[in-house]
């Protein structure tokens, strides 16, 4: 059984980042998209359930990476519906706001992400994704590789100049 896409679950693309916004019941295919997003936030009334996912094993693997083994097992094996408060405790979402404020919270998050230097944002996203499969030494080497490239970008120089000039930087993605 795959529940239909619900209006309670939205994916917001901000710069290179996907933000999952959950305002009501989230299960099945929605649950799978939500755990694939980069950042997750929820309204107070949101609930989460892995019931009806197409790929339970894939979900279990992904959740273990997202939350650690104990928390992943609590969600995947516990079989209970997870409240917004529990989702916050488990780290399944990183922010819960009262339902009337969710629109404002999403706009602020989106604006914040769009204001960041795009090359660094993408590099961080990719590096976090890669880190788990690397030894610490390899992961640090990868971080250093990104750092060397990023420090030569116009956006980094613009950020430093803006800091010393006491103004907001403008980034061009160069």
């Amino acid at each position: 059984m795959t529940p239909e896409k619900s209006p309670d679950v939205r994916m917001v693309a901000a710069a290179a980042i996907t933000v999952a916004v959950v305002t009501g019941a989230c299960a099945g295919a929605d649950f799978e998209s939500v755990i694939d997003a980069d950042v997750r936030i929820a309204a107070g009334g949101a609930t989460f359930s892995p019931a009806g996912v197409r790929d339970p094993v894939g979900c279990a693997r992904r959740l273990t990476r997202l939350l650690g083994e104990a928390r992943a097992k609590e969600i995947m094996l516990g079989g209970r519906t997870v409240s917004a408060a529990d989702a916050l405790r488990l780290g399944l979402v990183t922010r819960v706001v009262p339902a009337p404020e969710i629109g404002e919270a999403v706009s602020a998050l989106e604006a914040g992400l769009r204001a960041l230097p795009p090359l660094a944002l993408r590099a961080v996203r990719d590096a976090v994704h890669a880190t788990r499969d690397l030894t610490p030494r390899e992961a640090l080497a990868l971080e250093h590789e990104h750092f060397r490239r990023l420090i030569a970008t116009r956006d980094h120089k613009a950020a430093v100049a803006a800091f010393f000039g006491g103004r907001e930087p403008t980034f061009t993605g160069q």
Partner: protein
Amino acid sequence: MGSNAHTRWWADGPVGVIVLDNPPMNVLSDDNRRGIRAALDEFREGGARAVVLTGAGERAFCGGADLKEEEELTTETVGRFLQRGDETFRALREYERPVVAAVNGWAMGGGLVLALWCDVRVGSTRAKLGAVGVKVGLMASNVQLSRLLFEGPARDLLLTGRTVEAEEAHRLGLLSAVVPPDALMDEALGWAREIAAGPPETVAALKRAINTALDPVVADASR
């Protein structure tokens, strides 16, 4: 016991204490990098059983790299800059005894990396953590946050660069305790003394085991 322009250190019974003192933000200087390594060498010689690392004042634990220093880096010098940072971070990570960070204020950028490579972190209610690399078009603390927090929360902090206040840091597990500013040093020394009271070789073996517990299994044992 010793000091340099920006760092002070001394032994308090079985616990070594290191204070970063580079006001106003305790920006990480070469004196700090050298001071931390010198202090750890001295504590090792003196048989310290645990170490507390903190920042002077109430404003910052460590403000991270000096943006002025960073601004002047060239393709030729950036490698050496990264290596100097790494030597210091690795010295904490690989030090045989546990290191407790007393996070008394801002820990941002490279200052957050410093706190995250410690073994236990306790904070004052003024502690503020920021993975701010992305905000200046760089990256820092990816590796540490992804290991300490798992990807879900790590992504949020690293991708937004937002400020994490003491209470949220406690909930995430980045701080093990939060106390009022004037109780912070006692709290940190309490954790350190408790660790120092344990059987030293067991404690050292535990630290080593936890350091490598998440590593992928590879044939190369030299990593």
